[in-house]
């Protein structure tokens, strides 16, 4: 359909088009949205048309593009906001300092910590190296713009099976290629900017074949007096754009993120994948923190999705003002960009500062010393409008209320709980030794050392509990990592992930709860106490009722548990449309939990410490195998997804924490993927010592993944005092010693040498990655 009759090129020496929306038919509006890459629905296009009809003028291309950015799923959460508001928002225990681009919580009297996690899924599926790298860049800016020094990165990643042989969805790349690229992108960007990548996860499932998930989280530390709002200070402030230059890279990134991937995505969306430049970012971090701590700026915000078009409006509106911008002052990577391209470009490594006139010169000088571009591009004005000029010509003037109050939907939602409808089919299991070795070598459980040794997880010199715990170069996995943010204080932060997409696939509500439970028990296991969460919700197309149902249920589960624990979720991110023609990804709500560690010198690690010490199971094991590693490995169907009893979790956390504070626990590991058997095996690997355990049940119970459980090591002399601390169920499992893991169940005895376990667990990933 030709739409030429709607476009009126303005007689100015640069590209500027007025679009006659008033004359457009519904069919034409639809085509217009598609042709311009706006990803807006017909209703939304009509709303824009009516707005400009009421203003009695035609919108310019700059205005239309800008509104599309602001109203994209990515920017305004139009499908998820109603659900999030109901379940997640607003939990407040009085320790939330800010809910800005990153959430900020109280750390101690003087400091706060910032946290956020978000997705960079679609760009990484198209260009894994650049996509992952810019994902890090974006999340670091979110933390930085609160005035916080970034101190840790976290990366949960989800791919198709590494050994996938069959057909790939059209346009998809092999999982192995994607893993290599994503890991290299995180490595090269994270290592270069000097922020330790301390925590992560690698998850493999068929559902991620065409649409991998790359979630990136960042934690920062900020003096309360340096905490910044993402807002201008007031009328008269100068707007200073700093960091990287603006180019055509990353145009339509947010609208691209708000559509399903297809075989054409690669060709159509290359422009939406930005290129990162860590060596612009690194000094940008220094310069921004320096001008902030000197008190030279009033507000700061990063340029992410939507670029300038989002940042200027949001900063002005948050400060109760409008803004005027001379768009042609923006430093460009290449000449010839149209005004709308400059306005919506998502070029990386850019920050916006708002500062009073008297401080502008000093700010520009300091940026010059760091060789980072900084340019005054506009000014804050009274009123509620943003006005843009290009070579003196007004190209844009939009009411901020209209621009930023994007649509919100209560889309139809269908709730299904497959675990209740699928008939449970238990698989036939081989002998316990085979099962254990198979599970240790399962890529979802096997050692991730191949990955985390490539990440500098110790830069900044504050990593206390590292990704590996135990003997040097022989360590087992850690439950949470612990960072000491300030060199002169022993107070620390524990970072832990919680996510189980297989639980969520069968029962999104229980899966959502389990993700919170997992993050909590990981934090408890290192000696911390849960303090807050940030979440990245990766789901399919919300326009399909059953997909939205999954989102709603998972969020309800997470929210119900977080609210019960009274632990806030001060930031988060939603990534929808994670699907291809072959279907949706498993519902994947990734939770990053943060815990406070009062004294990092009292932390506990997972590795077994001493021959003769006793092993206990804390918590209750139930017949809950739905979504478990053993069911997946041996082709079972259905099953009950492990439930969480909120009261039980809270009591367990408190009692375990108290026992740890009394110094009664020598090592501790949460029970998750693979159940008790795998937890104990991993503890043996870290301590390079065997153990003997006994259970009165059948071997099945060894692999149940019931929530709220830990394995703990206790010295015999402290057994009584330890048991005296607990009112929750606790079972003596056995004791430490020897060079093998011996398991006695009601029906059989098994002996697995350490050597064989290590070979299975450590060898799996390097072998698959070749």
């Amino acid at each position, binding site marked *: 359909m030709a739409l030429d009759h709607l476009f009126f090129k303005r007689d100015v020496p640069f590209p500027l088009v007025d679009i006659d929306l008033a004359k457009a038919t519904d069919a034409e509006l639809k085509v217009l949205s598609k042709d311009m890459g706006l990803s807006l629905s017909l209703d939304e296009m009509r709303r824009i048309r009516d707005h400009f009809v009421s203003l009695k003028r035609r919108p310019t291309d700059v205005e239309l593009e800008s509104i599309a950015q602001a109203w994209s799923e990515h920017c305004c959460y139009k499908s998820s906001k109603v659900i999030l508001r109901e379940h997640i928002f607003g939990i407040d225990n009085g320790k939330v300092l800010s809910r800005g681009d990153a959430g900020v919580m109280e750390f101690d009297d003087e400091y706060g910590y910032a946290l956020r996690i978000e997705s960079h899924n679609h760009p990484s599926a198209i260009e894994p190296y650049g996509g992952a790298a810019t994902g890090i860049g974006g999340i670091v800016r979110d933390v930085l713009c609160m005035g916080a020094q970034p101190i840790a990165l976290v990366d949960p990643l989800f791919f198709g099976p590494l050994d996938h042989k069959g057909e790939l969805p059209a346009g998809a*790349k*092999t999982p*192995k*290629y994607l893993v*290599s*690229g994503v890991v290299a992108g995180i490595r090269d960007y994270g290592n270069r900017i000097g922020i330790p990548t301390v925590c992560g996860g690698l998850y493999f499932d068929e559902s991620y074949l065409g649409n991998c998930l790359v979630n990136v989280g960042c934690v920062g530390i900020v003096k309360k007096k340096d905490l910044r709002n993402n807002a201008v200070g007031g009328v008269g402030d100068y707007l200073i754009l700093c960091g990287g230059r603006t180019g055509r890279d990353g145009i339509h990134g947010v609208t691209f993120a708000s559509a399903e991937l297809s075989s054409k995505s690669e060709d159509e969306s290359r422009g939406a994948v930005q290129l990162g430049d860590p060596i612009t970012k690194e000094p940008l971090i220094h310069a921004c923190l320096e001008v902030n701590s000197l008190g030279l700026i009033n507000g700061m915000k990063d340029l992410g999705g939507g670029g300038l078009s989002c940042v200027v409006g949001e900063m002005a509106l948050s400060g109760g003002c409008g803004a005027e911008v001379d768009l042609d002052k923006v430093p460009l990577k290449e000449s010839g960009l149209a005004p709308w391209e400059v306005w919506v470009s998502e070029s990386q490594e850019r920050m916006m500062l708002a500062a009073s006139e008297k401080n502008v010169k000093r700010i520009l000088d300091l940026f010059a010393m760091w060789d980072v571009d900084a340019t005054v591009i506009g000014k804050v004005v009274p009123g509620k409008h943003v006005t843009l000029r290009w070579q003196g010509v007004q190209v844009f003037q939009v009411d901020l209320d209209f621009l930023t109050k994007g649509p919100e939907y209560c889309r139809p939602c269908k709730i299904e709980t497959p675990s209740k409808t699928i008939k449970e089919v238990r698989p036939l299991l081989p002998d316990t030794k085979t099962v254990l070795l198979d599970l240790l070598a399962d890529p979802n459980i096997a050692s991730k050392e191949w990955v985390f040794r490539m990440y500098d997880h110790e830069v900044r010199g504050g990593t206390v509990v590292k990704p590996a715990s135990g003997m040097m170069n022989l360590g087992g996995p850690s439950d949470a990592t612990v960072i000491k943010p300030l060199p002169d204080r022993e107070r620390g932060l524990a970072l832990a992930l919680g996510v189980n997409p297989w639980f969520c696939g069968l029962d999104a509500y229980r899966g959502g709860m389990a993700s919170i439970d997992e993050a909590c028990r990981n934090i408890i296991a290192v000696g911390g106490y849960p303090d807050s969460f940030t979440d990245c919700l990766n789901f399919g197309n919300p326009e399909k009722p059953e997909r939205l149902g999954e989102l709603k249920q998972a969020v309800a589960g997470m929210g119900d548990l977080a609210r019960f624990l009274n632990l806030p979720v001060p930031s988060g991110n939603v990534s929808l449309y994670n699907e291809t023609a072959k279907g949706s990804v498993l519902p994947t709500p990734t939770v990053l939990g943060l815990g406070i560690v009062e004294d990092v010198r009292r932390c506990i690690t997972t590795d077994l410490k001493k021959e003769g010490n006793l092993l206990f199971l804390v918590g209750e094991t139930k017949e809950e195998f739905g979504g478990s590693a053993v069911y997946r490995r041996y082709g079972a169907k259905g099953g009950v997804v492990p439930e969480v009893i909120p009261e039980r979790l809270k009591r367990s956390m408190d009692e375990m924490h108290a026992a740890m504070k009394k110094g009664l626990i020598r090592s501790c590991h949460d029970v998750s993927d693979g159940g008790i058997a795998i937890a104990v095996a991993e503890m043996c690997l870290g301590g390079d010592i065997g153990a003997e355990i006994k259970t009165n049940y059948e071997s099945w119970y060894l692999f149940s993944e019931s929530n709220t459980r830990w394995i703990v090591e206790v010295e015999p002399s402290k057994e009584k005092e330890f048991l005296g601390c607990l009112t929750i169920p606790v079972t003596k499992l056995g004791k430490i010693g020897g060079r093998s893991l011996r398991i006695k169940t009601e029906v059989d005895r098994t002996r697995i040498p350490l050597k064989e376990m290590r070979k299975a667990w450590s060898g799996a990933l390097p072998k698959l990655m*070749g």
Partner: protein
Amino acid sequence: MVVAEIRIELKPGVADPEGKNTKKALELLGFNDIKGVRSIKMFEIEMDADPAVARKECEEMCRKLLANPVIQKFRVDLR
């Protein structure tokens, strides 16, 4: 104006992990008949100078920054 192409390559016998890993990545993308991949770095430098002077300056650049003689050799081509 002259354009100098400065080619920096590893001296014989120095291992080339970038080449090796690139080969692996290319094979993962389905290119199966690759025998070897070598990484060679190229800088293109535009100069406003007499060719003889330009060559000399480029060689100086290599000595001052672009090549480490312990592991790398360089070649300057003008066009």
